[in-house]
């Protein structure tokens, strides 16, 4: 607790600085949101009335103060376009992005660690090289391109080679239009729609994790105590489980902590291509409509999750790695 409190204080300070940055950024942009709220034939007087109604006529620091005080009460303002509370807009969209990001994060670590383990400890050199080249290429592919490529494969590609119908996956939306199905059929429909978005999100992630896991397990298998263990006659499986995999877990946990903050921002393109109404798609819609309160609120939510994820990763590492604990509490090492 003594070590966790300063971190928590830092995180809150950081979030406050981020609100200043985003507020300044959005209000420094050219264009006047009040002109978007009135009809094109409106007089200057009407524009002024709208400006007063939304408090846009006050000096910037006053506007910022009012916004932050409301933020502390959990009030993010009202959307200029739909007149709904920004909080409700975010509450609708956030679960979808969280589910997409969370599931694909788990999939990419599970897949990536297995592939990396296989490459480092089981594969023949030629197979290892082939998989390394593949993972480098997949890791480099932009997600929107990968999404379109998979759509081609799952639709016209699958039809071309005469693949069975269950392989022709839907490439649009969260569920089939109508959505009248219930129970098991409903979940099956959802799952079929989720395959392509989750693949697009997990494949590059798994490729990155595999590259990293392969390297760290290879490094671990070269450690002197592994040679010592095998000289003592321990079985290969035992050495791998007890020493190699164990040693490479810490760098993987660190990587997990570094990946965590990007989880909900990672699906912007995937939501856009597959028309999933998540946070990224809502953000793009709000940006296109110059819906300032929504853009502002969502940016703060994005930054908040990053800061929170970093805090969690920091604290978890503090628990996992005793070396960090002594170093940070300032205890003399000699």
């Amino acid at each position: 607790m003594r070590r966790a409190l300063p971190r928590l204080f830092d995180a809150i300070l950081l979030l406050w600085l981020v609100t200043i940055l985003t507020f300044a950024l959005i209000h420094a942009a050219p264009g006047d949101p009040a002109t978007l709220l009135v009809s094109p034939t409106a007089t200057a007087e009407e524009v002024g009335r709208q400006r007063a109604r939304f408090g846009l006529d006050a000096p910037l620091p006053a506007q910022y103060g009012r916004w932050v005080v409301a933020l502390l009460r959990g009030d993010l303002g009202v959307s200029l376009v739909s007149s709904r509370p920004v909080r409700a807009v975010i509450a609708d969209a956030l679960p979808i992005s969280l589910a997409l990001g969370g599931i694909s994060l788990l999939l990419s670590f599970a897949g990536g660690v297995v592939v990396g383990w296989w490459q480092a400890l089981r594969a023949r050199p030629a197979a290892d090289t082939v998989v390394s080249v593949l993972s480098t290429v997949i890791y480099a592919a932009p997600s929107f391109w990968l999404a379109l490529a998979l759509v081609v494969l799952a639709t016209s590609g699958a039809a071309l080679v005469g693949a069975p119908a269950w392989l022709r996956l839907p490439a649009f939306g969260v569920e089939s239009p109508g959505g009248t199905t219930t129970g098991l059929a409903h979940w099956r429909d959802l799952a079929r729609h989720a395959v392509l978005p989750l693949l697009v999100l997990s494949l590059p992630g798994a490729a990155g994790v595999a590259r990293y896991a392969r390297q760290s397990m290879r490094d671990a298998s070269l450690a002197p105590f592994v040679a010592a263990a095998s000289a003592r006659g321990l079985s290969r499986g035992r050495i791998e489980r007890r020493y190699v995999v164990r040693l490479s877990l810490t760098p993987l946990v660190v990587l997990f902590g570094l990946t965590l903050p990007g989880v909900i921002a990672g699906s912007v393109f995937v939501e856009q291509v597959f028309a999933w109404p998540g946070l990224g798609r809502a953000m793009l819609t709000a940006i296109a409509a110059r819906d300032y309160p929504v853009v502002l609120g969502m940016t703060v939510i994005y930054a908040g999750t990053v800061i929170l994820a970093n805090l969690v990763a920091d604290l978890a590492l503090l628990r996992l790695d005793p070396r960090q604990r002594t170093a940070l509490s300032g205890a003399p090492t000699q």
Partner: protein
Amino acid sequence: MPLTVPDRANARDGLWQDRRLQIGSALLAGLCLGAVIWPLFGSADPNAITDVLARRLTPPLSRDGVGHWHLLGTDAFGRDVLLRLWLAARVSLGVGVLGSLLAGAIGIGLGAAAAWRGGIVERMILALGDVFLSVPRLILLLVTAALWGPGLRVVVVVLALTGWMSVMRLVRADVLRVRVLAFVEGAAALGVAPARLLWRHILPNALGSTVVAMTLGVGNAILLESGLSFLGLGIQPPAASWGNMIAGGREWLLVAPWIALAPGALLITTVVACTLIGDALSHRRR
């Protein structure tokens, strides 16, 4: 026993024997060459639209309605896809390199200032870096590019303003490490002025890891530029960029998939080349 001194020529030979560096450099050189030379053989205005109905949506490796042969086919306006790919390469490579060079310059300046001045300056620069790192880079890019109006110049500036943080941290750490070494103290004792000491003696020895970060940054910047252009917030048509070509091919995806898929091949090649070079350089430094 004679001491062996590692001489520079040998070190460089060792670096060039790294297959990753060889392949990465060859790919990048090929891309630059193609981007410079290929459009020179094209028509006067590669974005011009003529004979749309006869020419459009020609599949790869076939002749269009007026008898011209196209290696990668034509797009919905009858323009040659391969020619536009190389035109887009000029924009994407240029934006990526320029954006990450500018970001690197900002990072080096702020990192050196933080390490050199210390105290309140250092703490403010570090806090600024933390604030910029707290907002996902893509979100920051989307908001700024959209609010300031899309375009080439905005994209470059925004890439620079959102990409300096890691370079700043690396340079600061390296300057702090180098400034206490014996040769720096020696130079200071000989009366070298502080500014010259930083510029001529410390910075050149502190930029190793920065070069690696900037190489990887080029690939990243190119990906982000293409992402912005894909969403319509980056390079605007009719100017070609890999991102807006993919976006333009999206509505023809099932009829003419080559329009959207071809740009991805060059995009991936570029990013792989940057990754390979970055890997080789960072491996070398260990």
